[in-house]
């Protein structure tokens, strides 16, 4: 059958349809008008009009993280594309598959400093997995399908397809997504069986093992989470996770140690420090996890399962690297382990669990509620209790509230938790929750926010109202950039340089100005009722939860310290941070 002739804009839309895309996020402009015209003529793709291109990118991320499918967004040339850069960088560091379609000035104008011209492929090259400038209309359908392939396969990530306006008008044959075997990019899915067998043997001998899991388990798909649970069950090993991996293993499980890292639990960090076998599954030894690297888990044999060969030995030397997809590797590992008679060192494991239980007794996340003021941990706990049995998707902004959410909100399933881990992007959570809500219209999508972060993409309230997206924004309002203030307290002698927002808006009135609903809680006694009211409200809500201003996020591994040198925020602790530590972020 001859390939049908279409305009470039029609090819873009047809390729999206053929890739199974039914919703995109975007903002129109001069250089993408032909594509918007093609969108006008189709009813197969829903378009969510955002109020800023950064939000389009984060909404696409929220869509992707909550569905496991790639998120797509469309922006115009120049400022449209540069506004999207933060979202692309965010998706790159957190390995989220998103496809950015950007308009570009007409081919003959490229390089002439034309109106709204920017070197989009140049600017986005270091913050995408790959990008393309389409130079010939006949390349367009291949590039569109290749973009999806690259974004989804291997370690997922963001891609950009830059589309000059003349290409959008030009006619070319359309080719479907069939048979697009990639000639160079073919990631390895199966792990090396010899190494896997070696790990199965190590599992049998380990006395103080730990499974250190990350976002790779979630990216690998629901099967990977199931296999992780099976591995944990059949070995009896304790499980911890990075911020990105929360939900891959159920928080209610007795083998769950909580999150590890800078604001992780005592039991998770001490177990990481003292273990003799560390099996890293889809995590990348990020500096937020390792703390001081030359004191990181000094006595352990380290196994690292990762689909990206460049993650292996990047910061921490590992003894057994296994390059492959988490689900594929865990499946093989379980098979070999079972074939070997699944002998774990039960006696040693019992002693290890006894030690872990002692650490658990520290109750590092415990706090005493105040009579008259809301503590942020308490607010999260009340929120958690109210919504935990519902169909929920939780996103966060970045800062103290994000860590409290990670500590006090508990996840049973993957893809329910969306947070900016690698880039630490304030302003991520609200648009991400919008993206999740678009994908799951009936679900309860909540952005746990801070008063500073939420203002970075506050304009998206308008998007939520326009598209009937009943996203709830739960703002832990302490008037400060809380994490900045906390670091100034610990590292800079309490000189709170510009971390106090003197002129916060009235969030209740702000919500109303946008056509949403505003709620405020200032006293612990009114928390539950107000949270219930928020849940029952059919539209978008800004919940201004006024919390104590001076609260710090603990426990904490200060910069330049090891896993076993945690701070708990007690009065008698000296906040000694080394000179080396001070220069770390």
């Amino acid at each position: 059958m001859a390939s049908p002739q279409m305009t470039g804009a029609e090819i873009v839309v047809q390729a999206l349809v053929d890739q199974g895309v039914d919703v995109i996020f975007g903002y129109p402009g001069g250089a993408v008008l032909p594509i918007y015209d093609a969108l006008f003529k189709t009813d197969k793709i829903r378009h969510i009009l955002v109020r800023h291109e950064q939000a389009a990118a984060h909404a696409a991320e929220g869509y992707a993280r909550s569905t496991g499918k790639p998120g797509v967004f469309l922006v115009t040339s120049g400022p449209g594309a540069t506004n999207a850069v933060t979202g692309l960088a965010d998706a790159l560091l957190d390995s989220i598959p998103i496809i950015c379609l950007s308009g570009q000035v007409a081919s003959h104008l490229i390089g002439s400093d034309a109106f709204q011209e920017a070197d989009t492929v140049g600017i986005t090259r270091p913050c995408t997995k790959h990008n393309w400038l389409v130079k010939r209309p006949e390349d367009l359908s291949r590039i569109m399908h290749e973009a999806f392939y690259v974004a989804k396969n291997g370690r997922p990530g963001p891609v950009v397809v830059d589309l000059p306006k003349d290409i959008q008008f030009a006619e070319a044959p359309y080719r479907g997504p069939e048979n697009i075997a990639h000639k160079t990019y073919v990631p390895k899915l199966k792990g090396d069986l010899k190494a896997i067998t070696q790990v199965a043997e190590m599992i049998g001998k380990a006395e103080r093992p730990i499974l250190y899991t990350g976002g790779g388990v979630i990216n690998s798909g629901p099967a990977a989470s199931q296999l992780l649970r099976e591995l944990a069950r059949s070995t009896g090993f304790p499980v911890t996770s990075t911020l990105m991996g929360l939900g891959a293993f159920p928080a209610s499980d007795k083998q769950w140690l909580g999150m590890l890292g800078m604001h992780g639990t005592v039991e998770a960090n001490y177990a990481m420090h003292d273990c003799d076998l560390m099996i890293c599954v889809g995590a990348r030894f990020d500096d937020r996890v390792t703390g001081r690297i030359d004191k990181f888990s000094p006595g352990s044999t380290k196994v690292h399962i990762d689909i990206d060969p460049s993650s292996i030995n990047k910061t921490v030397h590992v003894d057994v690297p296994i390059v492959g997809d988490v689900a594929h590797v865990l499946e093989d590992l379980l098979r070999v382990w079972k074939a070997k008679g699944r002998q774990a060192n039960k006696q040693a494991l019992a002693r290890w669990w006894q030690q872990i239980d002692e650490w658990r007794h520290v109750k590092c996340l415990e706090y005493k509620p105040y009579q008259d003021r809301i503590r942020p941990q308490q607010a999260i706990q009340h929120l958690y209790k109210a919504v935990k049995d519902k169909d929920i998707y939780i996103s966060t902004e970045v800062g103290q509230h994000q860590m409290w959410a990670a500590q006090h909100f508990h996840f049973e399933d993957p893809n329910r938790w969306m947070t900016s881990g690698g880039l630490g992007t304030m302003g991520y959570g609200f648009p991400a929750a919008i993206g999740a809500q678009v994908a799951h219209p009936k679900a309860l999508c909540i952005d746990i926010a801070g008063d500073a972060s939420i203002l970075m993409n506050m304009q998206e309230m308008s998007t939520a109202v326009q598209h009937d997206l009943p996203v709830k924004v739960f703002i832990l309002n302490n008037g400060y950039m809380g994490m900045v203030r906390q670091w100034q307290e610990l590292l800079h002698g309490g000189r709170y340089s510009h971390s106090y927002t003197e002129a916060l808006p009235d969030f209740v009135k702000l919500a109303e100005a946008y056509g949403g609903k505003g709620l405020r809680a200032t006293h612990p006694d009114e928390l539950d009722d107000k949270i219930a009211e928020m849940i029952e409200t059919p539209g978008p809500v800004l919940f201004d939860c006024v919390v104590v201003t001076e609260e710090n996020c603990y426990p904490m591994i200060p910069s330049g310290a090891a896993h076993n040198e945690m701070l708990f925020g007690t009065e008698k602790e000296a906040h000694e941070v080394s000179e080396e530590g001070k220069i770390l972020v």
Partner: protein
Amino acid sequence: MSIMKEEIQERHCLAALVDNEAGVLARVIGLFSGRGYNIESLTVAEVDHEGHTSRITIVTTGTPMIIEQIKAQLGRLVPVHKVVDLTVEHDSIEREMALVKVVGTGEKRVESLRLSEAFRARVIDTTHSSFIFELTGAPSKIDAFVNLMRPLGLVEVSRTGVVAIGRGASDM
């Protein structure tokens, strides 16, 4: 990390086969600058005109851990077909070409010509007061020649950077 600081810097010559598409060199160079890796020399040219593939030869220095990182990072770039470490995976030959302009008269001019013969350099342009020598060899040989020319009126050097290939019958 103290162990890392003390680790020795190694010099490696890497060859990467890449699709000769727009921006591929920028991707490679951006990777090196963005991640703080060293480039001692970089050469690139299309080696298969039908398949539109280019070969990039990069000489870099770093600790063994960094060298492994560089190879892994290069390997995951989408248009990269293959990365080979010619320093460890092969017994390999490195060559570089240089064009060296020497200006002078009298005794110095004679001496530069005499030395060029010892290095098997060719004179490819001459005036009454200048020579341009063409010289091929290992980078160290070119360094040596350039140093010898310095007191004899060296005014300009243009070097290609290293190209390299593994010895023997097998391909990369």
